[in-house]
């Protein structure tokens, strides 16, 4: 027996958040339809799952991106990728996600359906189910379409210890691919800033690539995804946390020509621009080639490159040999370069 497709012609109203029949129907017609899996199908407010040995990793991430749909993704896929990547950067194997939706009254059901479908696709592609969720509706004008908070739970295998504490001079800094795609894709969608070439967000789940990297080199010191604030913020955070210096080589940092051109035009530094599908890896020099080879075997790491090393001098500072051979500090961004980026 096939169920008839749900009617998605209307918009979300306050009754969809009221806890009654309308809400049950919204959950059934949209969220369960796209996200169904054995965990979610338990139907409890709290889902039980079995974990094996190892330590539990847990993370949460709120997504308020504007626009909701952008080249290379949407808030649904981003909410899955963002949280999976946060788990992966701890070396964890993701087991399950949760999703909480705050929806503004008047939001088109068809758009909500598109977002839930995209989430379902991202979750299935990643092999990580959405195990439980929550839906709230706020009055018109009190939200902006839809906000999604996802939490993730995962297990860190025995023997894996990824932490800024393990940074030490002489280690090598690797980057999984070109920087700035996500931020520029979002910017290009905002009013009046469309470029000739479509720049797509790099939004992607990195946990599979990370699992292979850890399998090849269990002693990886640090993994970090350079999201808001870009590569420069991530490296500065690490340098500060560990009290080490870093020296980069500008010419080694991959940036797509169209992203570089957009940054030139807008006066942005690609190192400060957000990514949603890249990682920084710090490892012992002897492991660098192995890890680069593993990364390059994955679509997400095809353009992986060695971009610098950890130094003993200038603790807390990230320095860079510029394109022309001069030196400069790579600073983190002050204030907000671009709000509502993820």
């Amino acid at each position, binding site marked *: 027996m096939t169920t008839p497709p749900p009617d998605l012609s209307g918009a979300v109203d306050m009754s969809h958040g009221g806890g009654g029949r309308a809400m049950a129907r919204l959950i059934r017609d949209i969220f369960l339809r796209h996200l169904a899996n054995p965990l979610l199908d338990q139907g409890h407010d709290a889902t039980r799952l079995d974990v094996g040995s190892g330590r539990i990793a847990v993370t949460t991430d709120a997504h308020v991106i504007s626009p909701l749909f952008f080249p290379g993704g949407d808030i649904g896929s981003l909410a899955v990728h963002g949280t999976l990547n946060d788990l992966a950067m701890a070396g964890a194997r993701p087991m399950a996600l949760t999703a909480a939706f705050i929806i503004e009254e008047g939001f088109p059901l068809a758009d909500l359906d598109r977002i839930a479908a995209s989430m379902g696709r991202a979750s299935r592609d990643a092999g990580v189910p959405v195990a439980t969720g929550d839906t709230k509706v706020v009055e018109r004008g009190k939200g902006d379409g839809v906000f999604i908070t996802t939490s993730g739970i995962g297990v860190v295998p025995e023997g894996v210890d990824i932490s800024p504490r393990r940074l030490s001079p002489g280690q090598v800094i690797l980057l999984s691919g070109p920087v700035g795609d996500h931020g520029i894709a979002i910017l290009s969608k905002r009013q009046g800033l469309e470029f000739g070439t479509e720049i797509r967000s790099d939004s992607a789940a990195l946990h599979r690539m990370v699992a292979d990297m850890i399998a090849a080199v269990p002693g990886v010191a640090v993994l970090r995804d350079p999201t808001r604030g870009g590569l420069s913020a991530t490296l500065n955070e690490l340098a500060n946390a560990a009290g080490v210096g870093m020296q980069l080589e500008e010419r080694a940092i991959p940036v797509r020509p169209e992203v570089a051109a957009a940054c030139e035009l807008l*006066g942005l530094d690609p190192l400060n621009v957000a990514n949603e599908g890249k990682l920084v890896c710090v490892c012992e020099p002897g492991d660098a080639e192995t890890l680069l080879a593993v990364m390059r075997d994955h679509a997400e790491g095809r353009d992986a490159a060695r971009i610098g090393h950890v130094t003993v001098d200038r603790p807390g500072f990230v320095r860079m040999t*510029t394109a*022309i*051979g*001069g030196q*400069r*500090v790579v*600073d983190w961004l002050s*204030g907000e370069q671009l709000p509502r980026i993820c």
Partner: protein
Amino acid sequence: MKYVDEFRDRDLARTLATAIAAAADPARDYNFMEFCGGHTHAIFRYGVQDLVPANVRFVHGPGCPVCILPARRLDDAIELAERHGVILCSYGDMLRVPGTGRRSLLKAKADGADIRMVYSTLDALDIARANPGREVVFLGIGFETTTPPSAAAIAQAQAEGIGNFSVFCNHVLTPPAIRHILEAPEIDPSQAARLDGFLGPSHVSAVIGSRPYEFLAARYAKPVVIAGFEPLDVMQSVLMLIHQVNEGRVAVENQYTRVVTRDGNAKAQELVARIFELRPSFEWRGLGSVPDSALAIRADYAAFDAEKRFTLSEKQSRETKSCECPAILRGVKKPKDCKLFGKACTPETPMGACMVSSEGACAAYWTYRRMETLAEMAAE
């Protein structure tokens, strides 16, 4: 990236560095003022000073539109948004600049004023079209580069009959500012004497051409080389200036020939002349009152002039105490000479505009070279 990567090539940079080192006479100093904040940032972002000998020095000029806007004008903009209830549209750089009492547009926005960041005057026009019941004011700042877009917006608003749009005009002119640096009595007289030449503006010159600098070179005997904004442009221009100094020549030379002509962009000049006229005098932070150095909207377009449309109150505007922005803008002091630098004043907690703007000298020192700067400060 075509037409950009070539100008950031390391081998070419090394060749130029060798030529500069060979040309520079070790027995003397070369002090060149780069007028534009854009050049200051190119120099710091690429570490150009690491590639030139120590006796070739860059003196940073006042070419930062955000930095030279005095507190009074910013206070006026805040008043437009808060007291007159307009939608105030501004380029992003302006938002965090502290006015009197360190109040900024961003703080006013947080307190409820309707202040919006735009990337172009066209965005501001769109906002005016979309909000016919509201007054929309564009905060016009900048040198000859940002003036044509403001002029175009006013022309467009008039053509379309957009009655709720106006510009709060703070557009300023480059050549009068250079002249002021070279002759104004309130500026340290030794300052003008120790300048050996100017790196002329890139984008400004694309609009006005190289001709307006000719009288500066002739009258004040200072070489000028119009320089592009890429690091190799800067290096080649430095080499050209050194040659002029060594040969005792004084000329306006154009390194940035791929963009700048002697006569500039006639169409842009015509548009600007149609909409704007000279202000008899304008207050610059750092330079004080400079005659014939800024533009006002012509009477024919008074309907689009925010200063005519709204009555701005008298106010006791004050710059932040002990902030050395004014002296830094004149090239008399460097950021390290300011006791606030890196302590009370950082990009997160700016005390002065030079630390905020992406063209400000303090921001360049902080962002790209603060280790060296803080070390020098500690040593002194």
